[in-house]
């Protein structure tokens, strides 16, 4: 028999088998390998962290920069350079989509990447979890000495009885069990080397928290898909309309044309309106009026009394409060806004050119309400800029003193008259603003309720003041799904953080020296080991009580186990430890592994190299 040495020629087949198939990658190969690299990059946990970081940065940007969908006027002021950092900075912000971060392409692309990364992480994890739930069972042990937590007790019961008792006990504590009673034939297998392997002892193997922790984490992450779908579908199916209504004046119908601001989703059709009618009977608002009382000036009530008339039905009275919106046929009606509505009558040469309520909107800085009166029926056009001071009591001389108070105990209407071209239809303007481009001012006039004033050939009267309320009508069919998604999120989050993974074994064996039964309860905690210490001691004590045995002190442990056994729990061939012992990435193991520096001194389960990264 010749001995093969290093100098011997290699077997003939070797070179052919080893020859590298190295060809220049064609364009397809290049694309393929790039795709594989990109996929690998996107499935990394670190990438997900970076993506989250970038989204956080964008969100920070959105906190610092006014957002167009929220405060369009402020954004307009920034763009015009009236506020904020200036025109050039605003142009830079515009270029990167900073005024509408959540509608910008960059945000959507990032969201797409994040969901892609999430999906890439979820697919293998869900598969591994299903495999875990369907096939895994608690692994059996041969040696207990390696387990970090141990308790020992002696009893006079038979080992089989102790095992049955332990099963019952652990079942009550909701552990997953795997009893193991080897039959005699399997007890002494003889390996081919002639050495007897140590048999797997009779035992009760149990584990807890393995499904629920990972399952909770999966549920938490999967809930984001529910939320995403609900939000996307919501964008398509939703509808939101706004409309102002004056007390006692005709209200509006739920039809597409009657809303002043109308934002339907793409899939919301005009036929989906129900056609009911809403009228405002009264709007109640009040404040803390005593200037010395605590919280002076704060509002105390906002309440609308309305009448709702279904398309074919009887009118019904209802109340809309600030925290109690009204539901009409699945539409939610909320109060968004309110203001005073002075009635202004304008007459020129005995001809009424304007008679109606104007809706005065509160000034941004508070204190007074602003609006405009437009009388295009006059020739030339007459316009009035209007300032409404709700509380302007007269001083000793009878001159009104405007205060900032919002209650209408001494209302004063100040008008500035303009004459010329209102440019209705020619320029973009709102109902509440006068475009004075083509007009000339004719000076101010002030009116109390019930007064009539003649000014520059125009008779203006102010017969009464009412209030108006801006209602929002919204249909959001996605809400239930959002609540469902949020529920899933929380339901997954709690076990993902608070289900601790533990393994435990109860091994009872006959001690020939004393004739009694020696029971070892041993276990391992993957999270919060210091809490497990107590739990294991509890279980051992209960088992001792149930079997009429006594707990041995921690230092007087008889060593019946093989002293040479190694530290790791040795899985038996039939225990599929390869799948169950894989450490999942959400694992915090706060006290087992703290940082790389210290991990070598503490017992840690082996990480599988192919485990998913999140």
């Amino acid at each position, binding site marked *: 028999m010749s001995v093969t040495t290093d100098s011997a020629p290699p077997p003939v087949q070797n070179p052919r088998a080893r020859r590298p198939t190295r060809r220049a990658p064609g364009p397809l190969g290049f694309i393929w390998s790039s795709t594989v690299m990109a996929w690998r990059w996107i499935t990394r946990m*670190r990438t997900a962290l970076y993506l989250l970081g970038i989204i956080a940065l964008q969100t920070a940007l959105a*906190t610092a920069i006014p957002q167009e969908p929220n405060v369009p006027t402020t954004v307009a002021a920034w763009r015009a350079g009236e506020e904020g950092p200036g025109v050039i900075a605003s142009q830079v912000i515009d270029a990167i989509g900073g005024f509408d971060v959540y509608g910008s392409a960059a945000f959507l692309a990032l969201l797409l990447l994040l969901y892609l990364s999430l999906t890439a992480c979820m697919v293998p994890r869900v598969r591994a979890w299903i495999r875990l739930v369907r096939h895994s069972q608690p692994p059996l042990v041969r040696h207990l000495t390696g387990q970090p937590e141990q308790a020992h007790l002696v009893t006079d019961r038979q080992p089989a009885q102790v095992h049955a008792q332990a099963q019952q006990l652990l079942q009550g504590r909701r552990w997953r069990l795997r009893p193991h009673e080897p039959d005699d034939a399997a007890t002494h297998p003889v390996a081919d080397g002639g050495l007897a392997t140590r048999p797997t002892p009779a035992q009760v193997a149990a584990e807890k928290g393995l499904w629920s922790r990972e399952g909770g984490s999966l549920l938490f992450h999967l809930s984001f898909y529910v939320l995403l779908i609900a939000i996307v579908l919501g964008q398509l199916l939703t509808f939101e309309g706004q409309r102002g209504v004056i007390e006692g004046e005709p209200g509006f119908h739920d039809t597409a044309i009657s809303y002043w601001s109308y934002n339907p989703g793409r899939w919301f059709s005009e036929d989906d309106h129900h056609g009911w009618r809403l009228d405002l009977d009264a709007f109640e608002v009040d404040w803390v009026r005593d200037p010395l009382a605590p919280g002076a000036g704060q509002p105390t009530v906002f309440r609308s009394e309305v009448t709702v008339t279904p398309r074919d039905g009887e009118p019904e009275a209802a109340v809309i409060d600030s925290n109690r919106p009204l539901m009409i046929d699945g539409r939610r009606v909320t109060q968004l806004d309110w203001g005073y509505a002075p009635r202004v009558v304008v007459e020129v040469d005995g001809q009424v050119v304007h008679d109606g309520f104007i809706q005065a909107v509160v000034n941004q800085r508070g204190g007074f309400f602003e609006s405009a009166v437009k009388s295009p029926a006059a020739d030339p056009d007459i316009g009035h800029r209007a300032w409404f001071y709700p509380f302007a009591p007269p001083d000793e001389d009878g001159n009104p003193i405007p205060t900032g108070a919002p209650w209408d105990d001494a209302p004063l209407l100040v008008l500035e008259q303009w004459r010329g071209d209102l440019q209705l239809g020619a320029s973009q303007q709102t109902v509440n603003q006068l475009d004075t481009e083509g007009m000339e001012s004719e000076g101010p006039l002030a009116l109390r309720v019930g007064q009539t004033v003649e000014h520059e050939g125009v008779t203006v009267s102010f017969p009464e003041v009412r209030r108006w309320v801006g209602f929002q009508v919204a249909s959001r069919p996605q809400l239930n799904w959002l609540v469902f998604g949020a529920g899933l999120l929380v339901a997954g989050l709690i076990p993902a953080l608070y289900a601790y993974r533990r393994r435990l074994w109860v091994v009872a064996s006959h001690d020939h020296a004393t004739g009694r039964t020696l029971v070892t309860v041993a276990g391992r905690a993957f999270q919060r080991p210091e809490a497990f210490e107590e739990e294991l001691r509890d279980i051992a004590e209960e088992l001792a009580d149930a079997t009429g045995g006594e707990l041995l002190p921690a230092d007087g442990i008889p060593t019946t186990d093989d002293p040479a056994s190694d530290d790791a729990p040795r899985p038996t061939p039939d225990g599929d430890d390869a799948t169950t012992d894989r450490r999942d990435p959400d694992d915090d193991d*706060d006290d087992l592994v703290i940082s790389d*520096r210290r991990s070598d001194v503490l017992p840690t389960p082996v990480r599988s190299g192919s485990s998913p990264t999140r």
Partner: protein
Amino acid sequence: MDASQLADLSRVLYFPTTVMLYLASAFTYLYALTTTVGRRDEQRRGHRARLIGGALAITGIGTHVAHEIVRGLAQNRLPLGNMFEVTSLMALVGVVVGLVYLQFIRKQPELHGFVMLGGSLVLGMAMLVYADPGPLMPILDTWWRTFHVSLLVGAMGIFTAAFIFMGLYLLRDTAELAVADARVRPGGGSTVGAAHVGDLEVDGATTPGSADGDDELERAQAAEYRAALRAGVPTVKLAVWTFVVTGSVSWVWWFADGWGTAGLGRFLTVNLTMVAAALLARWFVPYLPSTATLDGLAHRTVAFGFVMWTVGTIAGAMWAEVSWGRFWGWDPKETGAFLTWIAYAGYLHARATRGVQGRKAAWIGIGAFVVLMATYLIANYVIVGLHSYAEL
């Protein structure tokens, strides 16, 4: 008693009573911490000091609760309506949860002093935004608000406790690394086993009663090790960094004052107080528990706060749908809550990622707390949105 007398009473209960009790308790506890390595009689004195500290803390919590109740009676509503009330309750939750958690669940009572110190700092911050009791806007007068705000305020208190643990962890870790470095470098630059050398010393230095209290040699060695640990944290660097990190939040006060001198005074007060607290904590570095314990504490508290923050934010969205007619509108405060949520989610994920654990994760956690405080202040002072209640 009428409302104004009740208001006066609540103010006195808050300051000086509660603030002083918290501070006294913090310093008593911290003194007790230094005696754990002393001789027997010192340890006995330390034990007595701990009892006194506990009594002071419980009295302080009692007066704090009394303050909240009296304030609630004075204004006839739950004291959760403005920035002062929110910050004050945040301190109360942080202190109570921190003490109960350390005492009964973690059994690490030596950290009580730092929790009380943190509570005093938050109380002091609340005094910067003190407001007299008053009624509530009707839109806020609903159980939704109670639910939403209490959860978020509770989460803020818990995040504050987590922030303290993370800061202490970083200090202790820096000190241990420096000591390990110094021991190994003369031997040839290898760091293998460095941590173990330190670990062995730590046991002798911090476990009370493990060494015979009267063994002069051992005590001298332990004292030397303590000094080395303390020297491992560079003072100037710590002060500058604390100033910079605090400044990244506290500029808001200066800004809110239009960059005036009063605002500058506030800015400097907050920053220098934090620097003083950091230097105080540095002095106590040798008496801290192990880095593993501190890191675990930080992680568990963040996890708890994160659940509360999540539920509180969802509750806020539900309330917004009821009250404002939309569940999410990217209002500055909503954006801030979302940003904070992402930051703490980033911390929890970092803990699960290999290579980002330990120090890096702790820094992410510190950053998350900065985000929390910054969005809290910015959304109230700088950008006026639907949630601004600084003026109330």
